[in-house]
């Protein structure tokens, strides 16, 4: 998993005690194991199955959008259809791709739960699901972005997208300068999961 920056989300984002639901779900899991209905191996295997079912394909799609302006336009117009054209089946997900420009920076959250374009980006990182991120990114996005090392200039419009209903979202970051002539594979190597949620921007 590509996820490199210099602070620990797990600690800085959810410092409080586990929620009632976390405690309940943990208790149910422990009871099921104790009664011999499931084994910890089955739980782990199921989690691995989730990763296998939803491979992390976002960087290839976005690199293709960077390399092919026509594809990028189609991705912005209809994310699901463009991904299908590229051979990526998003299954039930309807996808809205939002483009970063010199004037606009986009960032995604789901304040109600943790909706995430799993068919494109795989399982969400822990911080995305944290109450701290969900609560703060909608009301002080610039401060939260700064904690991710992303400083958005005053003149740039910050747009927060709360993925609260039937749409899923992905950010199309700006292609870094100095990558002219790069292959799509090399471009994809610049694109991190965090940059597709909008908390960071790709850099050379």
């Amino acid at each position: 998993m590509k996820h490199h920056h210099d602070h620990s989300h797990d600690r800085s984002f959810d410092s409080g005690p586990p929620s009632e639901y976390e405690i309940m779900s943990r208790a149910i899991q422990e009871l099921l194991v104790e009664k011999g209905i499931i084994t910890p191996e089955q739980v782990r295997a199921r989690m691995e199955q989730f990763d296998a079912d939803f491979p992390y394909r976002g960087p290839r799609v976005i690199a293709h959008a960077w390399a092919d302006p026509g594809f990028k336009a189609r991705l912005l117009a209809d994310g699901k259809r463009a991904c299908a054209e590229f051979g990526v089946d998003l299954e039930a997900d309807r996808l809205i791709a939002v483009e970063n420009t010199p004037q606009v920076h986009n960032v995604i959250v789901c304040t109600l739960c943790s909706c995430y374009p799993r068919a494109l980006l795989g399982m969400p990182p822990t911080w995305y699901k944290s109450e701290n991120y969900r609560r703060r990114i909608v009301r002080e996005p610039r401060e939260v972005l700064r904690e991710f090392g992303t400083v958005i200039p005053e003149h740039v419009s910050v747009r927060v997208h709360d993925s609260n209903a039937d749409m899923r979202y992905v950010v199309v970051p700006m292609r870094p300068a100095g990558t002219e002539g790069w292959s799509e594979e090399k471009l994809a190597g610049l694109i991190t999961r965090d940059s597709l949620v909008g908390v960071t921007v790709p850099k050379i």
Partner: protein
Amino acid sequence: MNLPSAYTEAPARRFNVGERVRVKASEPPGHRRTPHYVRGKRGVIERVCGTFANPEELAYGFDGEPKRVLYRVRFEQRELWADYRGPEHDYLELEIYEHWLERA
């Protein structure tokens, strides 16, 4: 703004892109998909997403009928948060079902 093609049609919709709307300030019990922080707030229709089974019904095992038109609504952050510290061109966008919206 043209409606992207794979979105379901919503010919019977009440609102169009660019129209000013207000989210109802009601507090009904049960499973709701309209976050509290936008209730009673004014915004602008950003796009029409199509027609969807009503999740507030699906949540209780009903069939989600009648289907509801889903919109993306753009809010100025300063409308949402009186103490917002960023510039006036910061926005928040989210999806609201038609029965939660009224003309502003």
